[in-house]
């Protein structure tokens, strides 16, 4: 069964304390892996798409990487405004168009 597992469930960091969020996935025939940011009471905001193992994408303090089994979202020198829930999703498999989302990592960055 296709599945996405994110860890940790919650993470508290001091401002400037770099860390990584993990997204492990099992899907037959990955076609894309996605990272989103979700603020309370809002819809997810698109961050990155990764298509193949070894690919990396960067945006400001965020960097996403992909292997054949997992993806990491690295946060460098985070700021309080980076506090949010970060969601990972995969799209793949035969005969399906669905995207499978993980339950997210709740990140809190303290000033």
């Amino acid at each position, binding site marked *: 069964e296709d599945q*996405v597992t994110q860890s940790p469930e919650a993470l508290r960091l001091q401002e400037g304390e770099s860390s990584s969020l993990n997204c492990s996935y099992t899907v037959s025939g990955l*076609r*894309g892996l*996605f990272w*989103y940011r979700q603020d309370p*009471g*809002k*819809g*997810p*905001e*698109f961050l990155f*798409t990764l*298509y193949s193992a070894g690919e990396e994408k960067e945006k400001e303090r965020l960097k996403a990487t992909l292997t054949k089994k997992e993806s990491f979202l690295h946060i460098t020198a985070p700021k309080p405004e980076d506090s949010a829930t970060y*969601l990972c*999703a995969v*799209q*793949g498999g035969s005969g*399906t*168009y*669905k*995207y*499978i*989302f*993980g*339950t*997210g990592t709740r990140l809190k960055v303290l000033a």
Partner: protein
Amino acid sequence: GAGVSQSPSNKVTEKGKDVELRCDPISGHTALYWYRQRLGQGLEFLIYFQGNSAPDKSGLPSDRFSAERTGESVSTLTIQRTQQEDSAVYLCASSPRGPPGEQYFGPGTRLTVT
């Protein structure tokens, strides 16, 4: 430009009533998706539209749930005979291309069934 909009933002209904949730996608986006997000759970795929056809309805939880889309424009998700377990946030997303394109989400409709 304008993002994805959804209405209403909140809906409280009595068990057994029908509800309609509306989604206006980003102009020009051919793909449209509906998701359900229960408290503390991940987004649950419901249905995918390409234009006004639905190649994947596999996520609709029961025949009480249905959705339609007018061309490449507005979509409506209808839940008949609502149950308390239908309480959730319903999110709509659009994309300039079909899977595996990136999705742009609306703010969601919070549905509460009493």
